[in-house]
């Protein structure tokens, strides 16, 4: 620690902190134009010059990249410094047009603020005007390089944080500008970070041009509703319409957003949104009033229940419901509908957590938080293509990799942007990722790269684990997977010996059944090397959609009650029966796959689907279609008339995340508020629909005064949510477990040990064969960063950047089949079902694999995927 004085204020900071950081800590403001806490100091603007007296010598230096030292006396404002800053500003104004009244950045311009603060009037120099054309060719983003002040923040954030390096300084002197190669339009992640970080109006959002300026906008913080990272969004409204989205720099995501968060929201204004309920009359869906629709649904559900019993009904929830809605839906399904058959996300949004992490560690949740990634020394991406699935978490990996020189080990079935930059990249066939983890574990156990005594105190099951790993030596696994045994050994050694090692996994429809095996292997690796319960050590699991963790916490699964209590646990059941005033089913229900199978067999007669589009996203499309067409009564609750809703007997339109109150729980267990900013038309929130239906179906006691009251009830019943209330969530989120109203929550799980006393090492499983084992190629259903499930197809902006998907193939495979870019191919599964798509030759695909994105209703990749089996094999022919 070093102590220094800044403008007479004494402050102590960590060694290595800059004078600027020390000043921020001391509460002294130093003006900057090229500084951002996410970036490596650059020293371009020279506005942060300060006078420093150290060892009796007075010097002037930039505060942003000079480290604070013991005994320094810093002056941030003196006549000389003010003169120098004024000179800097005047030099900038020499070539900066003074068109502030018409500039979109007016009022949100750091240059304008500083010119105002330092009272710079007419500069004494002649103007030197630049003439760059205004570039509107890129999606979302407009370049007007005449306004650029060369702070380099856009170039740096694109490189240092996003890891994309799409923007660069090109040419020299007065011709110097920020651009791409040969001035082509952007072809990048479209995260919009460059537009947000620009201190002037040189890079800006096209949507704001002539629309509104910062000071005209009413701003509200809420939580992003796409992926599970739970980034804070600031919605800017003008005339009650969202026109701009950004993220505050003091949020846990530090202002970073991806394309979906920043530009994906226009779906809330889609003209295709349903405005009135629909019910099927004479074979056609017709608009009706709410009373009629709710009465119809209640009557039909009740009549099936009376005729065939509650278990003839089933329900599919969603990872997009808020915690409160998921909780009430759980109560509605299990008490009012009276059925145990409840699941969500095809069972794939949580399988790794429930069957992999929970049996080993205790909670079905990610033990570590996202920001820990940047402090890890070794990061193992176990089948986690974060660039596409969770771009903001990818930023943390990029920062660890480039700024803190962490080692990155990628184990995946395709080349990813991160595998190109990784120290070790082990590329295998789909469904084999966990084998590499087994081999690493075997190597660590054999070489004794762990503390055996400490492990015995922490976890049981070492002997069984060792026995089960017999056949997974690095050599054998290397032979099975076609990798280099030496690289596996290096990976094992790096992982075991690093000061901080994090494993990263993702959950979701694209991960197939391998996600459970990967999660088990990851838990074993972390346990054996003693990495659980320590910061920057452990496991990060990222579910697919926004409330993946919350849906699980609220028990939207066949065998769990809210708070992960088993439905077979009599005491837990009794507690909920008392609170809910109704008996609960005592046996676990069917999972999503089984529900649809039984529905196809007409054993399930009524199906209630909320916020999900099984026809497009669940595996085995033909089965799903048959099931949805076979049920006597199908009710779908959604914003849009999805392909599933088109088959329904009743469709209930709901509010979007911008229109309702609630909480989402992110993948790092952070419970955060969403806030209503828009007034929708005649649609209701999911919550209002559940309570209204409960009343109509004879359970009038299921009324709540609002989401706040529901959170209070959850806090009373679910231990880990015990201390969470809307009052406490007003300013920022709380990470569970948060057991009482004083508890600040735990960003890191298991710091004080495991809930069951000891963790459990799970033995390695015998590999399952792939679906269609004899076929020559693997099918990889992939995620694209521009999309989320099938839902993002309703977002005009995301469809503008990425309107369609193609079947990505390796150049060698394509050549051997005589295919070239744009050719149509037929991808055929083991049972003869097939899809067609256009070929794109891509580096991402390894030999023998074809990558098809899962988001597009035009591609229907779920025709070929199945619930069981770690991977799908197909054959490909020219169509």
């Amino acid at each position, binding site marked *: 620690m070093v102590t220094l004085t800044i403008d007479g204020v004494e402050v102590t900071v960590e060694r290595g902190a800059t004078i600027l950081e020390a000043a921020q800590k001391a509460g002294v403001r130093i003006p900057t134009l090229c500084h951002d806490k996410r970036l490596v100091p650059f020293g371009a603007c020279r506005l942060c010059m300060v006078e420093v007296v150290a060892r009796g010598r007075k010097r002037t230096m930039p505060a942003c990249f000079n480290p604070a030292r013991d005994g320094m006396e810093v002056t941030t404002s003196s006549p000389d410094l003010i003169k120098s800053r004024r000179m800097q500003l005047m030099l900038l104004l020499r070539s900066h047009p003074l068109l502030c009244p018409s500039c979109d950045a007016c009022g949100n311009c750091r240059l304008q603020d500083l010119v105002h603060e330092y009272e710079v009037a007419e500069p004494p120099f002649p103007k030197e005007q630049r*003439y760059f*054309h205004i570039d509107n060719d890129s999606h979302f983003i407009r370049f007007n390089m005449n306004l650029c002040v060369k702070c380099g923040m856009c170039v740096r954030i694109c490189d240092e944080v996003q890891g*994309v*390096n*799409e*923007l*660069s*300084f*090109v*040419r*020299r002197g007065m011709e110097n500008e920020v*651009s*791409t*190669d*040969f*001035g082509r339009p952007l072809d990048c992640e479209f995260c919009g970070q460059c537009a947000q970080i620009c201190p002037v109006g040189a890079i800006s959002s096209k949507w704001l041009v002539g629309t509104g300026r910062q000071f005209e906008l009413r701003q509200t913080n809420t939580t992003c509703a796409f992926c599970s990272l739970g980034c804070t969004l600031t919605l800017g409204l003008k005339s009650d319409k969202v026109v701009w989205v950004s993220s505050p720099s003091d949020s846990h995501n530090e202002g970073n957003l991806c394309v979906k968060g920043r530009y994906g929201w226009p779906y809330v204004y889609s003209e295709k949104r349903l405005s009135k309920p629909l019910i099927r009359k004479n074979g056609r869906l017709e608009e009706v009033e709410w009373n009629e629709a709710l009465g119809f649904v209640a009557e039909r559900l009740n009549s099936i229940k009376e005729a065939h019993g509650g278990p003839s009904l089933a329900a599919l929830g969603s990872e997009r419901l808020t915690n409160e809605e998921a909780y009430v839906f759980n109560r509605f399904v299990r008490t009012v509908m009276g059925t145990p058959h409840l699941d969500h996300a095809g069972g794939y949004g949580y399988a790794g957590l429930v069957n992999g992490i929970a049996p080993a560690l205790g909670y079905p949740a990610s033990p570590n938080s996202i920001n820990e990634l940047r402090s890890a020394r070794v990061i193992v991406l176990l089948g986690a293509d974060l660039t596409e699935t969770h771009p903001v978490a990818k930023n943390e990996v990029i920062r660890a990799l480039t700024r803190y020189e962490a080692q990155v080990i990628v184990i995946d079935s395709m080349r990813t942007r991160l595998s*190109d*930059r990784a120290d070790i990249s082990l590329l295998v066939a789909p469904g084999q990722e966990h084998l590499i983890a087994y081999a690493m574990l075997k190597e660590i156990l054999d070489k004794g790269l762990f503390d055996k005594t400490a492990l015995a105190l922490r976890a049981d099951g070492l002997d069984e684990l060792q026995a089960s790993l017999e056949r997974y030596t690095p050599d054998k696994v290397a032979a099975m997977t076609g990798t280099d045994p030496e690289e596996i050994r290096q990976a094992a050694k790096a992982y075991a010996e690093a000061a901080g090692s994090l494993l990263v996994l993702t959950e979701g429809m694209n991960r197939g059944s391998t996600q459970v095996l990967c999660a088990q292997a990851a838990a074993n690796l972390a346990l054996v090397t003693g990495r659980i319960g320590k910061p920057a050590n452990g496991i990060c699991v990222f579910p697919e959609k926004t409330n993946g963790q919350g849906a699980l916490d609220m028990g939207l699964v066949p065998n769990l009650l809210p708070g992960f209590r088993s439905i077979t646990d009599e005491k837990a059941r009794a507690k909920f029966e008392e609170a809910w005033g109704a008996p609960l089913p005592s046996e676990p229900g069917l999972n999503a796959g089984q529900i649809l199978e039984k529905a196809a067999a007409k054993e399930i007669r009524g199906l209630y689907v909320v916020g999900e589009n099984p026809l497009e996203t669940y595996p085995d499309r033909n089965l799903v279609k048959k099931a949805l067409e076979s049920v006597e009564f199908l009710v779908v609750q959604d914003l849009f008339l999805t392909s599933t809703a088109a088959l329904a007997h009743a469709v209930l339109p709901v509010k979007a995340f911008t229109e309702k109150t609630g909480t989402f729980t992110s993948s790092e267990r952070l419970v955060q508020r969403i806030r209503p900013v828009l007034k929708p038309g005649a649609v209701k929130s999911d919550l209002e629909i559940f309570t209204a239906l409960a009343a109509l179906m004879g359970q009038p006691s299921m009324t709540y005064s609002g989401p706040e009251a529901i959170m209070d009830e959850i806090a009373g019943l679910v231990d880990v949510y015990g201390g969470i209330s809307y009052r406490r969530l007003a300013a920022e989120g709380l990470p569970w477990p948060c057991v009482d109203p004083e508890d600040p929550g735990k960003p890191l799980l298991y710091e004080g040990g495991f809930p069951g006393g000891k963790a459990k090492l799970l033995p390695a499983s015998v590999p399952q064969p792939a679906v269609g084992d004899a076929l020559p190629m693997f099918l990889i259903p992939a995620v694209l960063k521009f999309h989320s499930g099938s839902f993002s197809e309703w977002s005009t902006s995301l469809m503008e950047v990425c309107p369609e998907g193609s079947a990505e193939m390796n150049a060698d495979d394509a050549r051997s089949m005589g295919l070239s870019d744009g050719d149509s191919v037929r991808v055929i599964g083991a049972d003869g079902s097939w899809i067609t798509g256009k070929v794109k030759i891509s580096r991402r695909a390894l030999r023998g694999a074809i990558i098809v994105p899962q988001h597009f209703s035009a591609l229907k990749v779920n025709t070929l995927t199945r619930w069981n089996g770690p991977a799908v094999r197909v054959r490909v022919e020219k169509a």
Partner: protein
Amino acid sequence: MEDRDALLKKKVQRTVEVLPAKELAKLDEVIARYAGKAGHLIPALKDAQEMYGYLPMEVQHRIADGLHVSPSHVYGVVTFYSFFTIMPRGRHTIRLCLGTACYVKGSKEILETIVREVGINVGETSQDGRFTIEAVRCLGACGLAPVMMIGEDTHGNVDPKDTLRIIQAYE
């Protein structure tokens, strides 16, 4: 500003020339020499320019791909250093000094002669691909002013009237 835009567009389009695949494949040897090493972009670009005489878009893209750097970064480097050129050069590069000493000794007249006779201005290449003219600040031989270099040959004490005769010797 429209004129300028049109000019910029014209310049960019000129660089999109399709090299035959066989020619382009020669680059792989250069890439293999430098791939995987940090900070070897400039030597790789230098070798490539020696091979093709200039660095068109395809060459830059191929190098970016091979060295795992972004094409924007490559373009930034290429446009920063005056040594690199995106446009094809003539067979002979005329470097005419316009520094103070040469200027007063008549290099302006030499330049005017070239502009008039060859039909190109500073920074341009003649239609027949014979000459590229560059104006330089100093060649370090002020005693020989006015100085002009053609390729590797230095011509000192050039009489503006002799300009045409000198350059005609280069085919």
